[in-house]
């Protein structure tokens, strides 16, 4: 029962996702595109959640620079990781949809290109985190990059308006009500998935930090008090 209580968010995500899937497959198909349109219920929520995830990263990065509290750094990293997963899912679903509708998986279309670049920008952000071993230095550098990387998000969002091309502009108000409700249900389900993944990733990050601290303690015992690793709570005192 305790395990069930601690996993209520995951359970909620699974139930919502199952409901969304059932609804996605049972709602009427689009008259023009047919069944392939059902991919919209994966593609659109993935893209929106990716934007949300990167928004959380930029907010948490700014909060870290202001407060130097390591929980903000963990939040920024976790959200960027989940955002990259959602971006990849949005690209994959879009490519599968494009094959029957546009005749090819990939076309040199502004929304596609800018989204692919968004994916690589945040891969770069995660690579930067991986490259820096010192947690204090990693948090500071990642916070700077986490803010600058967000420049790409409005470019992706506006690309369909700035360069009118194959990709349709926002159509959430022009589609039929049953389809729109299904889309909103999918967005809700994906939001729960995002929250569940974030919760697990943050727990994992906390455990990683504890492990790192334990290793540092054992290193001190072996090499003496002169050997310690920097911790985030000391950063504010050093500057």
């Amino acid at each position, binding site marked *: 029962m305790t395990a069930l209580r601690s996993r209520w968010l995951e359970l909620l995500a699974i139930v919502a996702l199952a409901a969304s899937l059932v609804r996605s497959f049972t709602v009427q198909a689009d008259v023009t595109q047919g069944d392939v349109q059902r991919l919209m219920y994966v593609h659109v929520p993935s893209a929106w959640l990716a934007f949300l995830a990167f928004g959380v990263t930029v907010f948490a990065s700014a909060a870290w620079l202001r407060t130097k509290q390591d929980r903000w750094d963990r939040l920024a990293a976790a959200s960027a990781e989940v955002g990259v997963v959602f971006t990849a899912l949005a690209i994959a679903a879009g490519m599968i949809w494009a094959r029957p509708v546009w005749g090819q998986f990939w076309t040199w279309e502004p929304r596609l290109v*800018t989204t692919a670049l968004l994916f*690589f920008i945040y891969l770069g952000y995660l690579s*930067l985190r991986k490259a820096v071993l010192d947690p204090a230095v990693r948090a*500071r*550098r990642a916070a700077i990059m986490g803010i*600058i*990387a967000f420049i790409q998000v409005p470019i992706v969002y506006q690309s369909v308006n700035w360069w009118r091309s194959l990709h349709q502009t926002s159509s959430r108000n022009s589609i039929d009500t049953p389809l729109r409700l299904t889309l909103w249900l999918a967005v809700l389900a994906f939001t729960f998935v995002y929250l569940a993944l974030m919760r697990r990733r943050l727990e994992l990050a906390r455990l990683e930090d504890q492990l790192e601290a334990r290793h540092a303690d054992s290193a001190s015992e072996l090499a003496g008090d002169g050997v310690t690793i920097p911790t985030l709570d000391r950063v504010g005192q050093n*500057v």
Partner: protein
Amino acid sequence: MTFWRQAKEIARKDLVVEARTSEVVLMTAPFGAAALILIPLAIGTDAPLLSRLGAGMYWIVVLLFGVLVILRKSAVDGPAQTDVIRLLGVDPAARFAGATATTAFLLLLFEIILAPVVIALYNPDLRGWPWLLLILPLTAAGLALLGTIAAGVTTGLGTRISLTPLLIIPLSLPLLLGATQALEGLRLGRGILPWLVLLAAVDLALAVAGVLAARPIEEATA
């Protein structure tokens, strides 16, 4: 010493180091020119096709090889030099401005060296070429600003050479778009003002971000 005097001194120091090695003029620019020679061998030596692709190829080479200008050895201060600059009390924002000014100047030089090469090899349409006097510096400044920030957050990392281009290239999309679309606009006789505004806006945003991030970057690399 005022902010601008500090920035000027930093830029002067970087330029003196670059002048001693001539890394951009003697190494990176010939490397870029060699790439411009090789590209037609890979995509075909059809003259009308090359004429149409020339401007785009030029900007791709400027962007990719420009990363080498940003990562040049002479741009890297060793721990001793960095410590001296810190002890002298140089404002991190002035250091950022000085380093960016040097890189922008060298990128502009790189663009100017490659321009006659692409004209000779690809015979691109040169309608409205005086606008290049504005497009080249704006692009060089944007790439330099982005590069200086990215190089700042990767300072001292073992993976700096691989990681910095990964941070720069995807984020340089607005610069590449602005530069290529402005030239395309000139070729087609359309207005290029929106693209110039895009370049200037990106430069301004990066300058503000760079100045604000200068101190945190300095602290992260201390």
